[in-house]
């Protein structure tokens, strides 16, 4: 048995009480607890963990957060992300407030915190939660996620309901603790939704994130996951999307914060006609360490996936991208693309890239590409010759680098927020792209990239 102080039976019981959860969920939690007690950390010799020793995500001395209700601080922190759209504000997995949900309710949409959902919409939640995309038995980390699930968000969109406005979740995470928020999205056939989630706060512990996104037949989901935790925080996460027949899933994962992040972002295409776009923006500095695994799993014919992950590194930051395209036998007429681009902005940065293909069908088109490069002195020179400082020139090139991804975003405010984060990392006040006089230059650089 593995001794795991702080993460004990009493804590599991307390969480189950906080949730006032039904028996079926308690069963899942306690099964996960048994697994958590017996599963060792993955060995650092394991290929998936070789570049990020699991010890870096250890939970020694941490207890699970037992947040009863959200705080006003969480609400205030959400301001920057608020607009007209429906919003849920969460604090360590507990609801801290909401706005603009009335119209959703009238349409039969359920958009609420997960604790409420398991009590009031058990019939909708039970078939999917910790089943559809993430299972406790995968590893010590997923077992931990389920056993100590602290709360989260549930979105259910009924058949045929199309939501034009994006739905926003502002998640505030604080304290030196284990926080395990969960997201469950169920889009019934021919529905449509956009979900924007942002994690921010004053966390100093470990965030163990899980997301299960189920996109039904002919449905369309656009999901955006923004991670902006402070640097002492560490994060492990699994984001898994199931893409149904003729369904479309588009996702963006963007990370700026945390000292260590280990993410598994996966799209499972198990019915014909499914299509998945996977975008990634990762910008690390100082000694930040990002390790991202992606999976494009084609299990059915006539499926398509297109992945573009961009990574920029400053300081002594390190990134690992390990992306796999797997096309199963019989998954003919598959189109799968994967591209990973890494931009090294400092002499001490380090990028590893492992783009992998496992192809068991023959009638398909599948490509991947990967590149690691530095700033082109020519470009810098060109921009400086037009009056920019070197720092501005670098900033402009980085904006151009990420622009290819940001231009594909559906929500203007999210794009602005991302540009602002890029500016902050570059030590600038504001994104350069907003300075009209510089737009033309930016386009010229973008064309040369």
């Amino acid at each position, binding site marked *: 048995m593995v001794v795991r102080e702080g993460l004990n039976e009493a804590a599991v019981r307390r969480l189950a009480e906080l949730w006032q959860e039904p028996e079926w969920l308690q069963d899942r939690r306690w099964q996960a607890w048994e697994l958590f007690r017996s599963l060792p950390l993955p060995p650092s010799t394991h290929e998936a963990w070789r570049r990020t020793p699991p010890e870096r995500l250890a939970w020694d001395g941490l207890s699970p957060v037992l947040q009863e209700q959200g705080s006003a601080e969480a609400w205030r922190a959400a301001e920057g992300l608020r607009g007209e759209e429906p919003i849920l504000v969460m604090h360590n997995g507990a609801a801290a407030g909401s706005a603009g949900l009335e119209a959703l309710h009238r349409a039969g949409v359920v958009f609420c915190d997960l604790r409420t959902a398991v009590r009031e919409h058990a019939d909708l939640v039970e078939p999917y939660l910790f089943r559809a995309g993430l299972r406790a038995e995968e590893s010590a980390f997923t077992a931990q996620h389920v056993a100590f699930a602290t709360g989260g968000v549930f979105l259910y969109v009924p058949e045929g309901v199309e939501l034009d406005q994006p739905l926003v979740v502002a998640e505030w995470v604080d304290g030196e603790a284990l926080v395990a928020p969960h997201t469950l999205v169920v889009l019934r056939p021919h529905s449509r939704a956009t979900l924007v989630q942002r994690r921010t706060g004053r966390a100093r512990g470990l965030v163990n994130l899980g997301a299960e996104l189920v996109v039904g037949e002919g449905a369309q989901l656009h999901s955006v996951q923004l991670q902006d935790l402070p640097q002492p925080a560490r994060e492990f996460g699994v984001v898994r999307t199931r893409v149904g027949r003729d369904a479309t899933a588009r996702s963006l994962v963007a990370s700026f914060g945390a000292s260590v992040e280990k993410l598994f972002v996966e799209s499972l295409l198990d019915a014909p006609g499914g299509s998945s776009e996977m975008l990634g923006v990762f910008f690390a500095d100082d000694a930040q360490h990002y390790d991202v695994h992606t999976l494009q799993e084609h299990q059915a014919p006539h499926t398509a996936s297109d992945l573009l992950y961009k990574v920029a590194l400053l300081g002594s930051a390190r990134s690992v991208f390990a992306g796999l395209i797997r096309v199963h036998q019989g998954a003919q007429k598959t189109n799968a693309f994967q591209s990973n681009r890494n931009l090294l902005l400092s002499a001490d940065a380090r990028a*590893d890239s492992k783009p992998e293909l496992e192809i068991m069908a023959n009638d*398909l088109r599948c490509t991947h590409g990967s590149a690691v490069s530095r700033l082109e002195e020519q470009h810098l020179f060109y921009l400086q010759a037009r009056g920019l400082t070197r720092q501005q020139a670098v900033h402009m090139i980085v904006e151009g680098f990420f622009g290819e991804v940001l231009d594909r975003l559906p929500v203007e405010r999210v794009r602005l927020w991302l540009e602002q984060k890029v500016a902050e990392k570059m030590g600038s006040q504001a994104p350069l792209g907003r300075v009209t006089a510089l737009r033309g230059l930016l386009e010229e650089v973008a064309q040369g990239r």
Partner: protein
Amino acid sequence: MATNPLGIDLDAYQWGFRMPEHYVFKSRKGLSREVVEEISYLKGEPDWMRAFRLHSLEVFWKKPMPTWGPGLSDLDFDDIYYYIKPTERQVRSWDELPQEIKETYERLGIPEAERKFLAGVGAQYESEVVYHSLKEEWEKLGVIFVDTDTAVRQYPDLVREYFGTVVPPEDNKFAALNSAVWSGGSFIYVPAGVQVEVPLQAYFRINAENVGQFERTLIIVEPGGYVHYVEGCTAPIYTTDSLHSAVVEIIVKEGARCRYTTIQNWSKNVYNLVTKRAVAYQDATMEWIDGNLGSKITMKYPSVYLVEPGAKAEILSVAFAGAGQHQDPGGKVIHAAPYTQSSIVSKSISKDGGRAGYRGLVKVYKGAKGSKCAVRCDALILDDRSRSDTYPTMEIDEEDVQITHEATVSKVSDEQLFYLMSRGIREDEAMNMIVRGFIEPIAKELPLEYAVELNRLIALEMEGSVG
């Protein structure tokens, strides 16, 4: 305390097994200290090599099996002959060969004498004459080209200085195994400034143990030298051995160039687990041209360590996997110095349930400024039961670099086929042409006779692939 250059303690292996004077070696299965001692004794080796073997055996026993890549669980180390005396190898007669091997030789148009040689039937044939005339040429220039056993006896200082310094026994389990029981292989020494114009081919060495399970090849190219070594042959090599595990070590010094060409076509019962590694010094060039058609499982990742400025590496890899085959070839380039360049091109074809692909590593050490590397992998899957895998890894520790990797997997497009067929070309021939075009970038790098044979071989493998 006496040691060899790898630090192996000779005294520690002094008290070992000693052969009785009139000992008759009988080949037997399995691996033990005694078997290793016997091999060394029969070869009349110096103490340091015996110590190296015994040390390696202990390393082999301790090293775990690889946990990645093709499954090797059917490999039974106790069911393998680790050494067979050359005379025993050669008693096999032409008539004993399986019919399909004989037929393949005939269809490839390989001369009878060479066929016998390939089949392991010890025989003299016309290239002996060629060999001798070339040999005189080389010797005048100071080039050494002998089997490695002979080299240990005739050039002990040279062998001792380099042996095991590129691939130490601890590197991996199969390198350790080879280090313990190696036999045969080529030793090549090219003095400074000498350009060996004619490719050196393994099968010229008719007196040696040519086709070994555990070959050990060592090539040293002194500054400004050039050599092209061609290992094996394109014809299928018949063997009853189930395991082939070679180690190849190459040292390419300043401004020198070495090209190493292999077209591997072991019979389809063989596990082919090979460690090939070269180190290239300032402005030196190392080129691996590696074709894999035979064997049951091949794991082979020729690598180049670019350790001084201006060093270059080129790796070309072709793999063809048919029924029951798993080809897991690839390449590794380590950029450990500034302004080093490399390129890797891989082409793989899978068919009839076969599995082929690419596994590779590009590593750039900090300080290897201005390094450039381009990797290109293309796979063709000819039916819906076959599989292709691409596993590249890039570890980049230096900012000032240009590293790119691209891979595609596709089928033979209907448009291509339609185009060719509309010009009156039969479907099977059209398919053949497309596959030939696919591997053309590598075939054109082969010596002519090999390119011709490669094309014929692929045509043979392609038979029956069309409806």
